[in-house]
């Protein structure tokens, strides 16, 4: 027992020294988690799309059409930068990317309601970005509903004001965005990015340690050959205990300091969150140790891990609704700590779920922790045996 603890301590010390001495590993463990979250949050810090430049083609040129344009231009999402004589001119501006939408008001716009007919406006949107389209459309429909209400009221000249209001809108509606009320882009995407940064930086860092070991070890093995590394348990534990404190600091930076810097939503209980993040960190650490066996060289982690961030983001259920992901991909996503990490973190942090409400994710992360610990244990066990046999051959 004493020997095991001593060996764990020995491996732990060696591992910390190795991390501190290797600038590549430090880049992944420290620089990347420090820098990436700040950069990403900065990119999305405006949260939404404002003042999308557009052109109008007003063929009616009446009091009503001008009122429509004025109201539209007053919306936060819209900025009328050009008034064009015809669609050809407007289309050219669209091609030059000076505008992203065209509003065309036909010549009969102000006459039709007088005759009891429906008035139309046409909105043309460049579909290179869906957020621009959404901003323009929402502003235009709000203006149309508002003007429509006025037309409806004018159609009921003899009714009392109360009766008018009832006829125009017999049912009232309220819309509430319960969470992320301003539909902020950063508020939505950053939590997922933060979780992924932790998992991916561990994959890269631990992979580099393993690859470097193989590169430099004369038996092309991931372990030095000495008495402290004879059994897999102290090796796995020693390494994990070396990474854990580093990532405890990283987690504080990523989940407390960065969101504070940019004033991101944090409605969850802090301690619920820290309790939840522990199995996530452990699962990531053992996951990274397991996958590090794929790294045959110091550079390999870049080549095989970096690209996975994007698919992982999409199967986590944050960018693409989980109900629209085919079942086999959902099942596949369950082997990655990031999937549960993102789910649980978003629920606690953005939806204010209590600890009990994320117990499914919490327990799953412990299951993953145990599973990857076992895998890492078995792989190191095999590695130690291979190392022994190679050494015997040399002798």
């Amino acid at each position, binding site marked *: 027992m004493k020997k095991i603890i001593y060996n764990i301590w020995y491996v732990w010390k060696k591992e910390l020294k190795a991390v501190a001495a290797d600038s590549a590993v430090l880049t992944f463990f420290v620089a990347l988690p420090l820098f990436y979250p700040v*950069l*990403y949050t*900065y*990119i*999305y810090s*405006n949260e*939404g*799309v404002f003042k*999308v430049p557009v052109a109008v083609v007003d063929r009616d040129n009446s009091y009503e059409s001008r009122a*429509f344009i004025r109201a539209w231009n007053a919306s936060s999402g819209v900025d009328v930068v050009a008034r064009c004589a015809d669609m050809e001119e407007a289309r050219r501006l669209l*091609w030059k990317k000076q505008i992203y939408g065209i509003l065309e008001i036909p010549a009969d716009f102000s006459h039709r*309601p007088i005759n*009891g*007919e429906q*008035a*139309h*406006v*046409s*909105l*043309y949107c460049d*579909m*290179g*970005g869906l*957020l621009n389209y959404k901003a323009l*459309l929402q502003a*235009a429909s709000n203006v*149309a*509903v508002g003007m*429509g209400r006025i*037309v409806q009221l004018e*159609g009921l000249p003899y009714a009392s004001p109360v009766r008018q209001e009832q*006829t125009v809108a*017999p*049912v*009232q*509606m309220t*819309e*509430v*965005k319960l*969470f*992320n*009320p301003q539909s902020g882009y950063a*508020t*939505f995407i950053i939590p997922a990015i933060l979780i992924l940064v932790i998992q991916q930086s561990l994959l890269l860092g631990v992979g580099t340690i393993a690859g470097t070991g193989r590169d430099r070890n004369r038996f092309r093995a991931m372990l030095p050959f000495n008495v402290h590394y004879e059994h897999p348990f102290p090796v796995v534990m020693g390494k994990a205990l070396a990474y854990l404190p580093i990532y405890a600091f990283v987690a504080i930076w990523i989940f407390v300091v960065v969101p504070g810097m940019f004033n991101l939503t944090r409605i969850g209980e802090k301690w619920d969150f820290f309790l939840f993040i522990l199995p996530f960190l452990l699962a990531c650490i053992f996951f990274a140790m397991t996958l590090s066996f794929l790294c045959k060289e*110091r*550079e390999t982690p*870049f*080549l095989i891990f*970096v*690209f996975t961030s*994007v*698919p992982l983001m999409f*199967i986590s259920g944050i960018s*693409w*609704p989980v109900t*629209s992901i085919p079942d086999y991909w959902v099942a596949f996503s369950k082997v990655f700590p990031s999937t549960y990490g993102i789910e649980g973190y*978003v*629920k606690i942090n953005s*939806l204010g779920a209590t600890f009990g*409400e994320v117990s499914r994710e919490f327990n799953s992360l412990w299951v993953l922790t145990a599973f990857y610990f076992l895998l890492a244990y078995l792989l190191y066990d095999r590695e130690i045996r291979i190392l022994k046999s190679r050494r015997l051959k040399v002798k």
Partner: protein
Amino acid sequence: MGLITIMKREIRQLAFRRIYLFMIVIAPVLCFLFFADLFKGGVPVNLPVAVVDLDNTSVSRSLTRSLDAFGQTEIVMKAENFTEARKAMQEGKIYGIFLIPAHFQRDASSGKEPVLSFYTNDSYILPGSLIYKDMRLQAALANGAVQRALLQAKGMTEPQLSARLNPVAVDIHPLNNPWLSYAIYLSNILMPAFISMFAMFTLVFSIGEELKRGTACEWMRLSRHSIGVAIAGKGITQLLLFLITGTFCLVLLYRFLHFPLNSGFFPMFLAMFLLIAASQGFALLMVGIFPRNRLALSSCALWAVLSFSISGFTFPVRSMPEPMQWFANLFPMRHYFLLYVDQALNGIPMEYSWSSYVALGIFILLPVLVLSRLKAQFVRNVYLS
């Protein structure tokens, strides 16, 4: 002749190790197929919502039914009260709540203006906004149904009615993506971004291997000590291989998935060709700048990952902070995205896109700046080994 020798040598080296097969073919193609499969519906449908029906009359039940009939919404839960529904939302089981108040039917018919409420969760921005759209439409329809009953009683005809219910209509023309398909707008950029990433990695890694294994000496000797030949032989070989993967990507997007290709094939093929070459140009610049191969790989990884955000296909570059708007131009994927919008999506004349084509061309020329440094690196390796 040196060039052909180097190219032959490069093919042998690439064929020799599995990691190259992984980067040039397996990983990008897996990503293509993954996203093609994930987005196969185009737009998410049947998003789960809850209804809290406190009225429970024929009118409220018919409202519920017609909301369920919308393609993008599926009622998976009928909650007794709001708290229950909110809990389900916090647990991520539903993306929206539609609340019908008590006495809804009675109040609506007696002119007491009952209030329908709908709640969405924009922490999941895509389902949140899709459901918001459906619920808003549903509430407007509810309004219309009551109004319709009131007005029909006054003897109005159908066209008069629609003019009365909705006097000002917005006709929407989403240019070249009338289906509002998310698949189109995501896949067109996600897939090429992987090619750009792996083109950078492969070039930097393969040069690193030459240095690490001490074969840079042989490489330079076979190039007759011309750095231009050495780099061109390696780069062109990899470019041609990636062009096969790239063409597969274009064929998948425009032929099998039938995404809009309003420019014809050539402008996008040219864009793909330039994207790969530009990524390689950027990669070589990094190899030249950083003495250590790992740092060059790191910066390429940074560029590749940032490309997914900064190319602006999900969040417009125009809405980013100003330094980022400028910074975005340093990414080949940004220019590829602009070319895609102009050419494949909108099919506008190529002369409007010249600046993006030229920008990619400039990336290809970047290695010229560091040729002497590159040569020094390779030659130093010769002496060391």
